[in-house]
């Protein structure tokens, strides 16, 4: 029990300074999706701090006048819920037959609520440590992210067979003739890898399988099909990215006392606070981060807004004005830019020649 208390303490410690940043609003918790997004753009301090402080980024973005579109269609939710309910009906009859897991019990640790955290976490540890065969729904997991212990919003089942534990994710996108939407599958794989990592930190590497099971509807019906995904690649990426994440506590401590993301503040004060955090915008943010519309606005005129491949083709030069000045010969390149500038000049000459023919 001591370990759990200690864990609670360190979480509380960070929560102290984070609470100050967030103000009066209740905190948003990390989940596998936010951890995955964080590792997708590890250089972004803005996102790291806002997530660590549990700031409601959707409302923050709305407040400052740059809302993003991050809703989920209720049709999609309804279908996802119906599929899950169907699988779990009658003591998981359908899920068991899909997984080929006829033996063992099923325990649901219940919904994701703030006040049951530590009870659920200890129950999770107890059940998983016992090693009994069966299915465990909604286990509560923790993961070290940027020097902070985060509780993961658990929406998965672990499946214990013999010595190994397997992560089972239920997703409602269809697998048609053995193929599914690539973006959905890779998102699911990264999320599952987050859970595998959290479980391995709890139980040790050899107890948790790197093969995760994805349960999806097959073809155009609601018939479930189980697909095994090897997430070793995602796991190693995740480990590397998490180790690279600067310690958020240090970042938060270094912020001036005036910085606050309390949504009750007037907009100019909020903007001033946001701007103390450096963002690293890339177009990929638009589909993963709630603050992206604001960051895009701030990054205008930079080659980063054109996307990574374009930026690289332009020799990694920071701003569009600089690119055009080098291309036209109006500016002289720094020693590091000589090669890129020569290429840009050649490109500009060829482009003019072809267009003015």
């Amino acid at each position, binding site marked *: 029990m001591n370990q759990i208390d200690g864990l609670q303490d360190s979480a509380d410690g960070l929560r102290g300074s984070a609470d100050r940043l967030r103000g009066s609003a209740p905190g948003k918790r990390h989940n596998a999706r936010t951890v995955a997004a964080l590792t997708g753009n590890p250089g972004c301090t803005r996102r790291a701090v806002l997530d660590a402080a549990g700031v409601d980024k959707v409302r923050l973005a709305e407040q400052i006048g740059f809302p993003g579109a991050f809703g989920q269609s209720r049709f999609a939710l309804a*279908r996802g819920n119906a599929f899950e309910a169907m699988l779990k009906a009658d003591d998981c009859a359908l899920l068991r037959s899909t997984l080929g897991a006829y033996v063992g019990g099923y325990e649901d640790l219940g919904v994701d609520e703030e006040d049951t955290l530590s009870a659920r976490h200890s129950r999770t540890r107890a059940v998983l440590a016992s090693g009994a065969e069966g299915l465990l729904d909604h286990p509560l997991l923790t993961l070290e992210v940027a020097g902070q212990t985060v509780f993961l919003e658990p929406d998965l089942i672990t499946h214990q067979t013999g010595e190994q534990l397997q992560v089972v994710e239920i997703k409602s996108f269809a697998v048609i003739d053995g193929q599914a939407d690539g973006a959905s599958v890779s998102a699911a794989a990264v999320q599952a890898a987050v859970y595998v990592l959290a479980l391995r930190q709890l139980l040790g590497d050899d107890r948790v399988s790197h093969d995760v099971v994805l349960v999806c509807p097959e073809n155009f019906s609601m018939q479930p099909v189980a697909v095994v995904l090897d997430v070793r690649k995602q796991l190693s990426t995740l480990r590397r990215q998490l180790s690279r994440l600067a310690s958020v506590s240090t970042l938060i401590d270094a912020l001036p006392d005036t910085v606050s993301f309390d949504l009750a503040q007037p907009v100019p004060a909020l903007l001033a606070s946001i701007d103390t955090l450096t963002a690293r915008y890339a177009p990929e943010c638009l589909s993963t981060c709630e603050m992206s519309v604001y960051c895009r606005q701030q990054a205008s005129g930079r080659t980063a807004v*054109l996307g990574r491949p374009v930026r690289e083709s332009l020799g990694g030069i920071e701003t*569009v004005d600089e690119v055009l000045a080098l291309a036209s010969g109006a500016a002289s390149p720094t020693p590091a830019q000589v090669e890129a500038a020569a290429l840009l000049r050649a490109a*500009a000459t060829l482009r003019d020649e072809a267009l003015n023919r």
Partner: protein
Amino acid sequence: MSTLVALARAQALAAGRAQPIATVRHLHVHDRPLVLIPLAMAGEANAPLAALLGTDPNSPHLLVVGQPRNRDERFAFTADLAATVVPYLDSFAGETEAVPVDRGRDVRHRFVHAPQVWVPNPGGVDFLRLLGRSTRFRRTDGDYPVPASVPLLGQWLTFLASSAEVPGSALLVNAVQALGLHWATGQSAAEDAHLGSLFAWIIDGAQAAREAEDGPVAGPATDPDFDNRVLAPLITTNSSPQMTEVLRELLMPTWDRMWQSIALLRQWPEGARVGSRWDGDRDAYSAFVTHLHEEGTPQPRHDGAVAAAGRLQRLENAAARYAVQRAFDDPLVMAEHRLTGAAFSGVVTLAKADRIDDTGKRPVLRPRIMVATTETVRVEPGASLTSPARPAQKAKVISVTPTVSGTDVVLELSGGMGRKLVAEPGSVPEIGEQMLLTTLSEAYRPGASLPDPSDTPWTHGGPPLHHGDVSAE
């Protein structure tokens, strides 16, 4: 992403306006295309919600599924869709022309015209592929019979979607890709995927593009907010007429943009080799019509090993040919190759047009020329070059010599000069002529020979089982 296109994007961002990245149109634009905007129900695996379609910009035809989760309504929708789409696709299977094959010893026939279907974006193509997959195996008898037009539409959609994978094919075109082939915007490729935004960059500029982002989507996915606020109440209360109006309002801006995009592209001069690619499309169309009339079996779920290898080979050849043809048609595309050193432009400084090589059994005409260039030359002696101005002529690199001002390249020419030992007038470049030489070649590349499907070796799964795929779901 080539540096040339990247530079165009930077220029577009600075100018607040999309910039051209082509000087000719690289796509066949049909005189009577069918525009089809599909809309899908969120969450479901390919459940159609609506489609706006037609061949006349002034009379769009709207089809709506009142209860997208009801199978019967879905298949009724597909039957309605088939009633418009299939007659359009069939209408080009009339007049034929004879094409000589086997060096003129034989002829085959192909249709003079072929259909062209436009969807807004790559998502639209995927939607049609899945709709084809979900309908082509449907039975017209048994427990859940459907009208005969439903599986037929499924086969047509499968044919169109698989032709869309062939680089340079124009039977099924998506507007985002077609516009993106000709203009670079000052935003990322991910943002270009929104047709409204891409179109606004071309027509009205950056500011309008930002505003268009919040405008109606071009499908097939709907906006979650629209689903929750507008669509859900209408589906629950079963108010079809109202739903029809709401969806029409949602789809009309995209409909107008699609037709404007087509009109815009039509104004461009067509590339010289676009016609030959459309000939290939007409061949594919003719072959598919013949297949429907003869066996008419639906395309299998998976290609067998031999069919898959053959298809991959065709796709690779098409991709290589398409890249070369675009460069030969368009100096701006060729400029990308000049930038990387795969092509260079120079002036002919020496020319010996009557040089005869008599070291072989028979004397042959092998003129030599020297080209002086200031551009990067990344070719080795022995390499074979071609010039877009004389595609039938090969130029073998004899020597590459750096000079004070650039590079001198000596070339030996063969082909494209007539059959005599004296070159036809104009077939050998003259001194002072500006010419472009490239390692790209249009020459036909024969593929590897593949066994007959019935001889598929056991290492590749053995001969495929036939008709196992036809069973209903």
